[in-house]
């Protein structure tokens, strides 16, 4: 919408000063944030805290996608909503809160679920995507679109007392370019979804607020450093792959923080035979929009049969 910003207003200097004086940040990084467009898919337990810190940091345009309305049972963990906004669309409720925190960013509401039909259109205008959704079909869809549109993706998930975080597709590389120096996509790391019945949503299995909250804040942290430092921009040799790492957080109710609370797991780079980004991939935006692949079928639908 508005052109590229190359200077800060006095109000922005004031608001972002404590972040701008951190070594490695500075005015250039702040301008990169102001000129960035970040899409947060999901305004729930991950999306609320992630959005608070994305907003606080001064990202210029913030899009939020969610088709649900606020329920009372969300409020123990979805801290960007409020009791008086129960029944309101989550995107409207969260943007109300974010605007009160920081009126300067440009907020864009997408009050519907992300779907194969709309995903490319919604994601296209953004520099980076946060996957804050709650089901595998959507997670594979978002990653596939991010591969095809060359967008970095910060993905987190949380159920009960566990959390996971991984930075994918960063820096992004065109589909089919395979070589270990390129970053993996969601499918490179999680080739097949669990069978139906072996997984449950937070609504069915429960979730501890601070677990999903920690993962959401950390998602914002990864997004901010990627944009502020340009980590999503290809390096001079085209690659610039960092160590792909899956961070897992285990919250034990019967123990205080300990040696195994966090573990950093080493993942591989882009896979030659990846269905989405690999060398023989036939995945296209047109195909996805037309129903190929069938994400619901690939993932089946979660059932509450088992509590795991």
């Amino acid at each position, binding site marked *: 919408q508005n052109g590229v910003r190359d200077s800060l207003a006095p109000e922005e200097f004031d608001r972002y000063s404590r972040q701008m004086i951190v070594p490695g940040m500075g005015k250039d990084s702040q301008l990169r944030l102001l000129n960035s467009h970040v899409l947060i898919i999901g305004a729930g337990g991950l999306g609320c805290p992630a959005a608070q810190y994305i907003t606080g940091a001064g990202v210029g345009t913030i899009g939020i996608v969610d088709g649900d309305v606020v329920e009372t049972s969300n409020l123990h963990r979805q801290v960007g909503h409020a009791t008086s906004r129960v029944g309101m669309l989550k995107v409207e409720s969260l943007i109300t809160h974010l605007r009160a925190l920081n009126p300067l960013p440009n907020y864009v509401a997408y009050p519907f679920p992300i779907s194969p039909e709309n995903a490319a259109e919604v994601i296209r205008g953004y520099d980076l995507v946060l996957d804050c959704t709650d089901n595998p079909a959507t997670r594979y869809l978002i990653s596939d679109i991010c591969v095809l549109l060359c967008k970095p993706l910060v993905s*987190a998930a949380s159920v009960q007392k566990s959390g996971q975080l991984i930075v994918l597709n960063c820096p992004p590389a065109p589909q089919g370019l395979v070589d270990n120096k390129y970053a993996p996509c969601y499918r490179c790391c999680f080739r097949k979804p*669990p069978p139906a019945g072996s997984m449950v949503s937070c609504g069915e299995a429960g979730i501890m607020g601070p677990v999903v909250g920690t993962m959401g804040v950390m998602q914002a942290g990864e997004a901010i450093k990627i944009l502020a430092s340009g980590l999503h921009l290809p390096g001079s040799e085209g690659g610039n792959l960092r160590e792909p790492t899956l961070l897992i957080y285990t919250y034990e109710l019967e123990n205080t923080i300990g040696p195994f609370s966090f573990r950093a797991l080493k993942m591989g780079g882009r896979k030659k035979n990846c269905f989405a980004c690999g060398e023989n991939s036939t995945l296209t935006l047109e195909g996805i929009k037309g129903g190929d692949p069938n994400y619901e079928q690939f993932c089946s639908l979660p059932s509450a049969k088992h509590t795991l």
Partner: protein
Amino acid sequence: MGDTTASTPTMTAEVEMIPITVDFSGGLEMLFSNQRRHSLEIPATDKDGKPCNIASLIGYLCENTMKDPRRELFVLDDHIRPGILVLINDADWELEGEEAYEIQRGDNILFVSTLHGG
């Protein structure tokens, strides 16, 4: 358990045992007595005399460690079920040879259930 000589029907007294730790995370610990870490001594070779690899470890865990009857939440068609990551010393098993990786003394094998909630 280290140098036991009492042999079981399928195991001769001379089978070397290797100490390893096996961890479960992401909710899988619920299938294994709600215990995150299991320190085990496993036979260095399987009944055909081949070195113990991840595939045989999975069988061993099902027979000896898993008390929960819901086996289908851990294995499917004798392989680890989709949606479970296997980490060998904190690295994705795809970097190490997957099921064929031969387990070494002191290895840490981690099974993590992939999460999708938010």
